[in-house]
Structures are given as C-alpha cells and as structure tokens.
C-alpha cells in the first residue's frame, strides 16, 4: 500500500503542535488496516533524530470499542506502574488530521504474531520461562495501580462487589441469543453459578486481552503489551486466566501460559511483583473465558447466517464452537477421574 501524502501531513501537523517544533514524517507501513482500527507505522524526524512511531487510528468512531483518550490513559497508567508498554506521545480527536481520532505511540521492535513468538521462544532455551515470569510481573504491576486513577471512561462494574454477577448475567444473555442450544454451554453456566469465587480485595485496572498476540517479544523477553481497547476494571485473576486459555497456546497445549510457559512461572513473577494470586478465582475466570469465547464464536457464525456480517471466516467460526465446548467440559471434569 503506498503512503498517502495527506496522512503524513496530518501526522506532521499533529506532532509539530505537540512537540513545539517541526517534525518530518516518513510513512513506513500501513499495517493491519481493520475496519475498527488502522495502525500506521512511521518515523518522525525531529531535529537530527529519527523516532520510530505508530499511529493508531479509529476510522469510524461510531463503531469504536473504546475512545482513544481512554485507551491512551490506560497505556499511560500502565507505563507509570512500570509495565512495559509503548509510550504515548499524544492523542488527537480532530478528525481532519488523519481521518479519525488517533493516538501516536512509540514503535517497539519484536515479534507479535503468536506463531512467530513461539518460534522465537523455541530458538532461545529458557526464554519461555523468562517470558512467563515477565508476564506475571507486568500484570501484577498493572493490577497494583489505584483504580481511582483510571480514566473515568474505563468500563467498570456497577458496584465493586458484583463483578461475578455481571459476568454471569452477560454469558447468560449470550446463551439466550444462540441460534441453537448448547447444553455444554448451559452446563458450564450452571457450574459457574455454583462455584463463584470470593471477590478480590479490591478491583484492579485490567488489560482485558492480555495474551500471546498482544505482546511484543524479543530475544530478551517481554518488550511491550499492546491493544488496550477492551481494558476495564475487574478481578485481576481475569487477566491472568485469559492468558492461560487453550486458544492462545497455538497447539503447545502443555504450556499453559500462551504456549510458551508454565503457570508456576507466571505465578512466581506475579507474586514476586507483589500480586496476590488466587487459584480458585483463576480457574473460575478460565472457565468463564472459555465459555465466553465459545459464545463469541457462535455469535460470529450467527452474524454470517443472519446476514449482518456475511463472511466465510465468520461462518467457519460456527464449526469451531465444538473446540470450546470440549475445552469447557474438560475444565469441569471431575478430578477423581470418575467421569472420564
């Protein structure tokens, strides 16, 4: 894709105003141009310095998941907590600059595509364990943040003590919308209702999609955590459990943490950075996340079938529902072996 001069001009105008000096822009690549978000990789030449940057643009704010101000605020909060994230250089709501609201952050080298991350880990003995520990440390530092300092636009439960209740209401509603009933999902919901964990001492700022695929990884380990658009306040174990769901392991099923590490390594990193690990809540959120993902796949198939998003990828999701039903049932299996 060839860079458009308007884009470079818009970015130059934006950054020059913020920095108080002229910046020259060289567009490098227009990566991942999705419907909701568009990442533009570019360099800014400021004085004699070449600064590698990324602009995250929301082409259509009507379908945005999160306002760029809120996302940038989460990134800045995470950075202030010592979590590795791209530094945010500025946020702009002015749609005349690049065609939509956007923020500019530091571009960090490394692998993000899950299979390439796993290949890197395989090529460097010990890196997987290091990475799992770093993920634990990074999450604990984020979760230690004072939730009152989070942007007021960040999604949060109605009351501090109803995180579990709201999660259950959410999945029950999705089960009600299924085109065909899934008794496995219903059984999963019943289990979740019966096994609600004790709430955390306090709610934390969560990344919301902390997983292999949203991490920048180098041969030195974790370099940055990306994609904060589904951040929210909740139980910290929700973040830890999401990273450990089977679908982020990319066939490395025995390595529970993103296909690269063991839970003990994640937990050790989490606790070493001051986090309070809760096994019961971790398992509950893993079951919930698995059910949610299964319902999400069924929802994608429905969007294809009802014509709202006719698309073969969405259609194919319907035939992946059985994977999540299997994962869910196996997470609920009796541990005495009687049911197997």
């Amino acid at each position: 894709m060839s860079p458009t001069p308007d884009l470079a001009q818009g970015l130059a105008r934006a950054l020059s105003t913020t920095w108080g000096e002229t910046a020259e822009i060289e567009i490098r690549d227009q990566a991942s141009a999705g419907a909701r978000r568009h990442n533009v990789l570019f360099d800014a030449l400021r004085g004699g310095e070449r600064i590698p940057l990324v602009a995250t643009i929301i082409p259509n704010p009507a379908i945005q998941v999160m306002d760029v101000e809120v996302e940038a605020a989460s990134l800045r909060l995470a950075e202030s907590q010592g979590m590795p994230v791209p530094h945010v250089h500025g946020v702009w709501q002015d749609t005349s600059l690049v065609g939509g609201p956007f923020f500019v952050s530091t571009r960090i080298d490394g692998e993000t595509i899950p299979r390439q991350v796993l290949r890197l880990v395989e090529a460097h003995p010990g890196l997987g364990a290091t990475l799992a520990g770093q993920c634990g440390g990074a999450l604990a530092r984020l979760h230690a943040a004072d939730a009152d300092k989070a942007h007021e636009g960040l999604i949060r439960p109605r009351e501090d003590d109803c995180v579990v209740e709201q999660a259950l209401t959410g999945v029950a509603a999705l089960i009600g919308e299924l085109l065909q009933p899934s008794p496995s999902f219903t059984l999963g919901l019943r289990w979740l209702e019966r096994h609600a964990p004790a709430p955390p001492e306090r709610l934390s700022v969560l990344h919301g999609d902390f997983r292999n695929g949203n991490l920048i990884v180098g041969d030195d380990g974790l370099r940055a955590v990306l994609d904060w658009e589904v951040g929210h306040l909740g139980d910290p174990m929700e973040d830890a459990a999401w990273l450990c769901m089977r679908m982020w392991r990319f066939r490395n099923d025995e390595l529970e943490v993103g296909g690269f590490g063991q839970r003990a390594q994640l937990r050790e990193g989490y606790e070493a950075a001051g986090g309070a690990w809760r096994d019961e809540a971790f398992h509950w959120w893993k079951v919930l996340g698995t059910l949610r993902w299964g319902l999400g796949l069924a929802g994608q198939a429905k969007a294809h079938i009802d014509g709202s998003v006719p698309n073969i990828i969405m259609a194919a999701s319907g035939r992946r529902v059985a994977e999540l039903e299997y994962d869910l049932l196996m997470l609920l299996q009796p541990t005495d072996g009687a049911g197997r």
Partner: protein
Amino acid sequence: MQDRPTAAELLEAIGDLLEKAVLPGTRGPLRHPVRVAGNLCRILEREAELGSELEAREVEILRQLLGPATGDDVRSLTAELDRRLATEDDPEFQARAWRGLLEIVRGKLRIAKPGYDAYDFVAELPG
C-alpha cells in the same frame, strides 16, 4: 442415488483445488479466506462420511439421558437436554449429562477438528 463422485469425493477435489492450486498463488487479503475455505471442504468431506453415524449415536446418547419417551429428533432432544440443565438442580443428572455431552462433543470434533480432543487438561485442573 446420485452418480459418483460422492459428496465426500467432490469436496475432497474442491479442497485440493483450493489448498494445492489456489492458495499457493494467492497473496494479500484473500489468502486467509481461501485457506479457511479449503479447511471447510475438509470438514464437510468428513461430515459427508461420518455425519449420519455420529448423529445416530448422538440421538442414542440423548435418549439414554432423557428417557426413551422423548422422541428421536436430535434437535428437539438437544433442546430438551438444554432445558433440563437450565432448570433442574440435580447433580447426578448433571454428572451423567457431562459424560454424554463429552462423547457428543468428541463426535463433533471428529468432523470439525480431528485430534483436538487428545489434550486432557488434567495438569491444569485445581486441587
């Protein structure tokens, strides 16, 4: 009876075309959808071969769970099992349903993703 090739044989031919001829020459945004379409042909090929046998077994499992008076239509049996799980609080029934559902889901995976059920999760269970 339709003439040969069978549905499975034709789906195999379409899958081969997509994966061996179309995919290698496809770049850009169509590459992923073409790969997915090829994989869907493999799924349908297995469904054409195994679908009726697995559905008959599914009906048998559901009838064992729900009782013989519940009919033999897989959709209504599934809906009835779902309704009972949603409304009844019977741990013994839930345990039996879990075992039956696991067999049904393993059957679906034989079509949708063979081998996916090799992983048993035991190492990551609590307690």
